């Protein structure tokens, strides 16, 4: 088993697991993700087509993922696939490791002092925990939206969206001011915020309403053209109307990216997710089509949880 470059695959020794080896997502070319992460300049998108490239989502596969805070094991060996261009919801009671698990997918988990992760997280075919992988590139490929809307307080609406490009050092590859403006506009349109803020692009981002701020954060992560977006309870600080707008947006975004959303709200999972995974005590109990998880789960614990018997 070798990869496209003829290198021995890090997966060669692994037991093939039928559940994980399910059909490869049709659209995405594995080399794209790999080139972006390893920094293979030959295969990187050239600056000229960078401005128009809109990535397709890629699949994310967890293999034996374990996450620790110091000695405490919070995620205890999870095998799970998030299919490309689908929305996967992760549900489970508080403290079951949902957030910790998705923070492993863009390597944000290790930012917490004393935290570490074991196992593999494959973006298409590339293990992002491979020592050769540039963690900064991983985070450009895998964006994240947090529970609390957190626009940069010193920056205007425009600068907040441009921040992804500027902070990531991509501004030179974007080129002219006009191109930057085009990218910001497209990201804001992508987050269905453009019409509301086009007149006040240069006002502080913190002056928007909570729901607008959260969409601004989504626009900010869209601007760097990620392949996956992780959402950690993105609506828990929002009112029902703002929540609805974000949910519509999620449905829209999955054409462009793969979405993993952690939620405490089971109605939300039922509304937005193609597939749902139920986590309990750091272990994956069950994963399947959302409809099935909520109506005919195979595990009794899932049934108890989705029918509100605990959690």
């Amino acid at each position, binding site marked *: 088993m070798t990869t496209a470059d003829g290198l021995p695959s890090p997966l060669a020794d692994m037991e093939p697991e039928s559940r994980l080896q399910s059909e490869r997502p049709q659209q995405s070319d594995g080399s794209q993700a790999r080139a972006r992460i390893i920094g293979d300049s030959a295969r990187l998108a050239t600056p000229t087509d960078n401005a128009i490239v809109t990535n397709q989502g890629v699949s994310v596969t967890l293999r034996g993922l374990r996450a620790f805070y110091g000695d405490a094991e919070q995620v205890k060996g999870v095998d799970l696939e998030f299919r490309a261009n689908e929305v996967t919801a992760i549900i489970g009671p508080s403290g079951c490791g949902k957030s910790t698990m998705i923070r492993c997918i863009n390597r*944000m988990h290790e*930012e917490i002092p004393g935290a570490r992760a074991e196992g593999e997280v494959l973006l298409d075919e590339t293990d992002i925990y491979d020592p050769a992988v540039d963690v900064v590139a991983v985070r450009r490929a895998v964006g*994240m939206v*947090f529970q609390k809307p957190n626009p940069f307080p010193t920056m205007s609406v425009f600068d907040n969206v441009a*921040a992804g490009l500027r*902070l990531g050092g991509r501004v030179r590859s974007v080129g002219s001011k006009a191109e930057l403006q085009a990218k910001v506009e497209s990201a804001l349109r992508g987050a269905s915020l453009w019409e509301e803020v086009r007149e006040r692009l240069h006002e*502080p981002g913190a002056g928007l309403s909570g729901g607008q701020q959260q969409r601004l954060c989504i626009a*900010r992560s869209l601007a760097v053209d990620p392949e996956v977006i992780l959402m950690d309870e993105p609506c828990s600080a929002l009112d029902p109307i703002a929540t609805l707008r974000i949910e519509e947006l999620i449905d829209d975004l999955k054409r462009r990216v793969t979405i993993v959303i952690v939620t405490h709200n089971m109605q939300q999972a039922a509304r937005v997710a193609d597939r749902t995974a139920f986590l309990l005590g750091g272990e994956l109990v069950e994963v399947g089509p959302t409809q099935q998880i909520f109506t005919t789960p195979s595990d009794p614990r899932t049934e108890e949880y989705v029918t509100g018997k605990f959690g």
Partner: protein
Amino acid sequence: MSSAGQARLPARFAVSAARRRRDLLARGLILTATVIALVPLALILYYLLRKGLGAWSTSFFSTDPTGNTFFKTSSIGGIKSAILGTIEMVGLAAAMAIPLGTGVAVWLIEYGRDSWFAHAVRYFVDVLTGVPSIVFGLFIYIVLVVGTGSSYGAYKGSFALALLMLPVVTRSAEVILQLIPSGLRESALALGAPRWRVISRVVLPTALPGLITGVLLAIARAAGETAPLLFTAGETLKTNYGLGEFMNALPVQIYRDVTSPTTAVVDRAWGTALTLVAMILLLNLMARLISRRSHVA
């Protein structure tokens, strides 16, 4: 809720007379304490203005002290050399201490965190904050004056002042950086920003107004110090610009003048003190205006 209802207010909702008295007493005590604390402050400002303004004139700012302290007022000179010396020496000290101190704080918060070395650094910074200013002067005197066998010089005074400022800048910057929500750093990191960019483009700009406050405190403290300059920058009346030369400073000028038996010279000390306070106030105002432009929550 009619006003007539007050008569029928149930006893359990009424404020008891005893609690009303205790409340009045407590309020009275706190107000008294505040007034007592304000008295010296107001008196300082009053005397500074009354005695200091009298000494101010055009020549006060445009001429050097003559050293003549026995004859008529016009011949004692102004404090030009002291003003320029303080600006130059404190400026150089700030140029050294601000980047260095802020850098230490950034390291402590963003990188060192809970390592033993970070704890050691924090401890020594705390110790340095408590070191009397004359000790910094003594240290520079031993190392740069006696140690090199050379004479006094302005840059040596600046080194002493920079040492004095360093722990103040570090400690205040560390406190401010600690207050920056970690969610801000995380969201920047999650955009694929390298850590140095997160620090320089998100963390530091957000912290800027707080950082400026700390820097101003340090500058104000350094500008008011006499002791570290006495045997590092030397004593002179002349205006010197070279950093290797002797240099006058405002606090040194005050120290020298206030011990004089001549009234006019003592008045010059008041004028000098007012100048020093006015300069720090001006710097403070300028910094506030600049930092307000970067609208931070």
